[in-house]
Each structure stands twice: as structure tokens, then as C-alpha cells.
């Protein structure tokens, strides 16, 4: 190969791959699936990897959606309950007793004395109590099964 030919090859590599690369990035942007597969939580105590799909698939632990997506218990449409826990379980602003998201379904006066725990408590409580019940998976004393660095 002559040096000139070599340069030509290099220039064509630039053009072809820049084009292909650009198209791949532009036409196929990263998207998150509607129903999560795995979820990664970053906390001060280390990351938590939650395998949503294994927990609910029949070949995995075969749980029902409502075991976790618990409110409302008898939804008219299942989708109503399939929202992020943080929609309802969050740290509230000063002077509020419940998050605004409740008002989609409830009247404010019905909720005066309700208490909703914050997100990390909700996770710890729900995840751990179930693991304890079935005596499998990570629970209270096994922080590091969930929280890895």
C-alpha cells in the first residue's frame, strides 16, 4: 500500500464511521421501558440494584403486581396503582400532611389524619417484611445484600 492509499483509507474510515455513529446515536436514543426491568437506586448507604423483572416473572419469584403496588388495593384499572412509590411516599413540604398526588382520587378533607411514610422507609419496610415472610432474600440484618458500593 502506498502512503497515499493509506491516507485515503483513513479518511474514508473517518467519514463512514462518523456517519454511522451519528445515525446510531440520533435515531436510537436511550429510552427507559414503561415497565422497569431492573432499577438502580443510589443512596448514601450504597447503591441498590432491584431486579423488578425477576421479582414478578413466573420463572423468577412470581409475585403479583399488587404485592408491591399496593394502593389502591382494588383499583378500577391496574395502571392506577402502577406508579412510582415516590409519587405518594415522599418527604412532605412544610405544613402538609399528604402529597398532592392523593388529590387525584381523594378529597382533601378525607385525608386529614393520614400518614404516609417517606420513600426510603417505604422501601425498607415493604422489601424487608416480604423477604422475612418468605424467609428469603435480603432483610434487616443483611444490609449489604441490597446495598452494595
Amino acid at each position: 500500500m502506498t502512503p497515499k492509499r493509506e491516507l485515503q483509507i483513513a479518511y474514508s474510515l473517518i467519514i463512514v464511521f462518523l456517519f454511522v455513529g451519528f445515525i446510531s446515536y440520533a435515531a436510537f436514543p436511550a429510552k427507559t421501558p414503561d415497565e422497569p426491568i431492573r432499577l438502580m437506586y443510589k443512596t448514601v448507604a450504597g447503591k441498590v440494584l432491584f431486579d423488578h423483572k425477576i421479582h414478578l416473572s413466573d420463572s423468577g419469584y412470581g409475585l403479583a403486581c399488587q404485592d408491591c403496588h399496593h394502593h389502591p388495593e382494588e383499583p378500577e384499572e391496574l395502571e392506577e396503582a402502577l406508579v412510582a412509590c415516590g409519587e405518594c411516599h415522599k418527604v412532605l413540604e412544610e405544613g402538609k400532611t399528604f402529597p398532592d398526588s392523593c388529590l387525584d382520587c381523594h378529597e382533601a378533607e378525607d385525608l386529614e389524619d393520614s400518614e404516609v411514610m417517606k420513600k426510603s422507609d417505604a422501601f425498607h419496610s415493604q422489601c424487608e417484611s416480604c423477604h422475612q415472610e418468605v424467609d428469603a432474600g435480603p432483610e434487616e440484618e443483611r444490609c449489604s445484600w441490597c446495598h452494595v458500593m
Partner: protein
Amino acid sequence: MLNQKKLIVSHAPFWHDGSSITVRSYHTMLAALPAALFGIFTYGMPALGVVSLSISFAIIWELLINKVTQRTVSIGDGNAALIGLLFAMLLPATSPWWMVATGTFVAVVIGKHIYGGIGGNPFNPVLIGVAILMVAWKDYFDFNEALVNYDLRFAMVYPLAAAKHLGTSGIEAFSTAGLLLGQHSGGIGATFGLGLILGGIYLIIRGFIRWEISVSFLAGVFVTALLFHMSDPSLYAGPVFHLLTGYTLIGAFFLATEDSSSPVNFIPMLIYGAGAGVMTVLIRNIGTYVDGVVFAILLMNLINPICDKIRPKALGKVV
């Protein structure tokens, strides 16, 4: 006796046997291709994007630095393209474009051209690029997090992370055959064990890399992992697992063997390779990083000049 001829050098013209840096670069890329293509098929368009962008950016950076420093344009030798390909093979398929751009810049400019270009670099340029990204954007190199939305036919947890955090019970899902056939998550071009091994053998047969380095690197990993495994089988994964996961194979055949940052004599090559292998497992098992290949090889790059001081003694030389 006196006028016996010792060495004959004829006058020009000489015959060039056709081997050149260009041939070498493109053949190395060819050897890496099976593993890279496998990664692209596994992870789809995002992986193709990363690989393509990485190759073109690496060449572009080299072209620019050639122009800026007013040297002859060296992109024809294919080395920049090779750096781009190998760099992409280490990344998760979801790497954003700006990370590919910065990484290839660091690899080509800081890893190579600052030292005067090809042959002058004390460290493997690809690994310099990856190491800096790993430190700067740790989360993007967490394969569990980066590939969180991928659902492939196999257990998607990153094997080395599972082994580190959960011990051997966390890696039951991985079989040796599965690992060889790329049934595990990781860098785009780093998971297809069989492809990497075949590529490596090709390079060894063609004489593009030195088998001494690859074999001693793998032996270093194997023996160290075996010792750990024997000391506590429930905590430390076995040697074959370490050989086939993370960057071990791509490191053994494509990274540790980069010639300007590795030794050339027999004993030094063995020390260099084995040292990198031992360090890899030490970092994996007791260090903070999940995979140790990148830093282990860079560390051995650092002591490579000392290694090369060990020379065979000239025959008959006293003192």
C-alpha cells in the same frame, strides 16, 4: 581464516517484505472484529454507535494533533483507528457520545501524542483513556447501572460485581461455556471469550503480539485466583471465572501486548505479564475496584522500563 566473511550487507535496493505498522494495525483490528461484532449484535444500535463514533473520533483527534503540532499526518498507519476500536470495546453500550469523544481524546492525545506519537508512549493509550473515564465518571462504568434497561437472554448482573459483593453464591448463574460464548454483561467487545481467544491466537501466529506476555498474564490471573479460591471457596470465585470475565481476555491479547509499553526480552516479558495478572486479581479480590485489569496493566507499564533492564548476558562475558 583472517579474511573470512562475518557479515554481508549488500547495497540498495532492498526488498521490503510488506509488513508495516499499517498492516499490523488493520490485522489487529481484524482479530478484534469477532468480539466487537458480537457486542454490536448483543447490544444493538447503541453499541454500533459507540464503536463507530470511537473509531472516527480517534482518527480525527490524531489528524488534529498532527496539524496542530505541524507533524506529518500519521493517521494512515491505522493505529488511531485501532485505539478507537479497542477503546470502544471496553465501554458499556450505553456510553454517551461526549464520553466517547473525551475518552478517545485522552487516549490519542494524552496517551500517545504527548510522548511523540506511536512508539514513544510509556503507557497503553487505550488504558489511559479508560482509566481517566473510570475515575471521572464512575457511574457510567458501573455495568449494572449502565445496562439497567437491557434484558437479554442471560443473567444481566455484572459477574465481577456479583462476585465481589455476594461471593460465590452470587455467580451460580454463570457457566464456563456461557462465559465463553458471551452470555454475560460487560464492555461491548469484552464479553465474547471465544472470539477474543481466537483473535489472540491469530495475532500470535502472525507474530503481531508476543505469546509470552499473553500467556504469562493469563497464568498470573489463574494462579492468583486459584490461591484465593482455595483459601476461601465461598468468598472468592474460581480461576476460570476470573479468566473469562471482565477485561481479562481482551487485556491479555489486545491491551497488555501493546508494544511500546511492554518489554521485549523473554524473562522481562514473563515478569511483566505475570505481574499484571497477579495485580488484576489482587485488585478484584481485595481492592476497591470491581475489575483490576486496567490499573494492573498500567502499573506494569510503569515498571516496564525497569523490567527491560534485565537483559540476557552476552555469551562468554565475564563480570
